[in-house]
């Protein structure tokens, strides 16, 4: 479904990715783990068109998207929940959700997905008319994911959904990521919380300073000594 080959991205003179290749098959949850600054967010930003790659190819459902703009890629069926959630704090929760459906005009389908987002995150239903800036961090993350659902993506990119959240909330979010996947959406998950990410994912890639260092089934990686030492904090 998503195929990245030899992706190179630079910010000015600084090279963030040195030839990253990865693949996401339909129906999977794939996670990309790694330390701060390894290039995880940059990879997602290149996929969704927010940064333009210096070289390499990105194919989504067989179509090259490396030169497309973000709003064109969304229309192809890919949603990206950015790092820091990207909530529009100057709008209500309801308006944020409706922006998710910006590219669509099938009123019935939108209403159905709206309902689905509120069923997944009942907290949002209570706060529809509230300004999104007044939500707690966890609620903002729920809103970001709910909003992404409203674009009706076949592939969902999630950037650090657990960042800064209480353990209880993290568990809820990961439970919902699993539900969204079970309902048919493919997911590419970027996480620093390797423990949770490896639990929920089918396959995983380990990114270190702009390069893929390891890849394989999530369970295998979680059991490997290297990953346990470097990312799971087990001696």
């Amino acid at each position, binding site marked *: 479904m998503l195929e990245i080959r030899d992706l190179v991205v630079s910010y000015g003179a600084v090279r963030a990715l040195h030839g990253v290749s990865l693949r996401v098959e339909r129906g999977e949850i794939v996670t990309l783990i790694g330390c701060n600054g390894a290039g995880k967010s940059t990879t997602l930003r290149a996929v969704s068109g927010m940064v333009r790659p210096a070289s390499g190819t990105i194919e989504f459902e067989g179509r090259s998207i490396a030169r497309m703009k973000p709003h064109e890629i969304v229309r192809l069926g890919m*949603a990206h929940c950015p790092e820091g959630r990207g909530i529009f704090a100057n709008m209500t929760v309801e308006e944020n959700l409706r*922006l*998710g459906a*910006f590219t669509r005009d099938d009123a019935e389908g939108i209403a159905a997905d709206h309902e689905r987002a509120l069923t997944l995150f009942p907290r949002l239903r209570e706060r529809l008319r509230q300004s999104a800036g007044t939500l707690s961090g966890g609620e903002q993350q729920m809103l970001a994911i709910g909003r992404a659902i409203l674009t009706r993506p076949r592939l969902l990119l999630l950037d650090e959904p657990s960042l800064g959240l209480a353990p209880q909330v993290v568990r809820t979010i990961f439970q919902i990521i699993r539900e969204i996947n079970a309902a048919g959406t493919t997911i590419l998950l970027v996480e620093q919380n390797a423990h949770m990410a490896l639990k929920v994912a089918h396959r995983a890639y380990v990114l270190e300073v702009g390069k893929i260092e390891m890849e394989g089934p999530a369970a295998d990686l979680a059991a490997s000594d290297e990953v346990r030492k470097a990312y799971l904090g087990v001696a």
Partner: protein
Amino acid sequence: MDQFLQTLMGALAIGSLYALIALGYTMVYGILKFINFAHSDVVVLGAWGSLVFARWAERTAGWSQTPWYLGGVVLIAAMVLCGTVGFLVERLAYKPLRRAPRINVLITAIGVSLFLQNTGQLEAVFGTRPASIPRLVGDRTIAQIGLVKIEMLDVVGLFTALSFMLGLDWLVFRTKIGRAMRAVSFNPQTAGLMGVPVDRVISFTFVLGSMLAATGGFLWALKYSQVNQPADTGWTLLGLKAFVAAVVGGIGNVRGAMLGGLAIGLLEQFGSAYLSSSLSDVYVFSLLIVVLLFRPSGILGSTAVEKV
């Protein structure tokens, strides 16, 4: 009482003009975070465009009496003209600088302003002499309260300005494109991730702001009937006051610009009527200083707090 009513009418008329122009400053700032110094020159274009269209229409049609709808037709023509120029200015001057430092854009805006002024001064365009616009709204008094006459012209002007402001408010807060504008204003990158075509929304905003500027120029020309040459300092002052209105209301805030425009109009007119008319500009800029000292984000402006 008579003086009060008279002053109030004048204040609302001029205040709504400031508000119309302030909206253009504030919308562009809201979306691109820079002050479009060329905005007041688009107002000038609106005034002169109206004048040229109106004269041309009268000359070619040879009416014995100006038809009632001519004003509307002239206004629409001026809006189309200014909208096109606003679109081209954004596309040719500002868009190539989207990733450049903000100071570059600011200096470019000053350049665009000078370009528009000097082009307007060309003999083949509007020239360097003042001219007068034909009477487009009947010279009638429609009501009289005490000694105060309510002129048709003021009522039409106020009605036009207010209905455009209400229309804009509806567009920004109640429609899909308005939601997209607010999203781009808050964070263009995330707006793109929602599928909002950011560049097109920016173009749309410029066209909209320029059309409101055209309306401001049109109403200004009708009100004073004499239109000064394109580089006249009076235009700069008008632009500056509208800019002050935008800052006082809270730059980037659409409702703030309307409120600021009316506030500036009231302050200026009542100050002139009851204190001293030679200080009318002083009141406006004093208000700016006071607002910047005590509430730098403006009356309706707010500072965003990021949550983690």
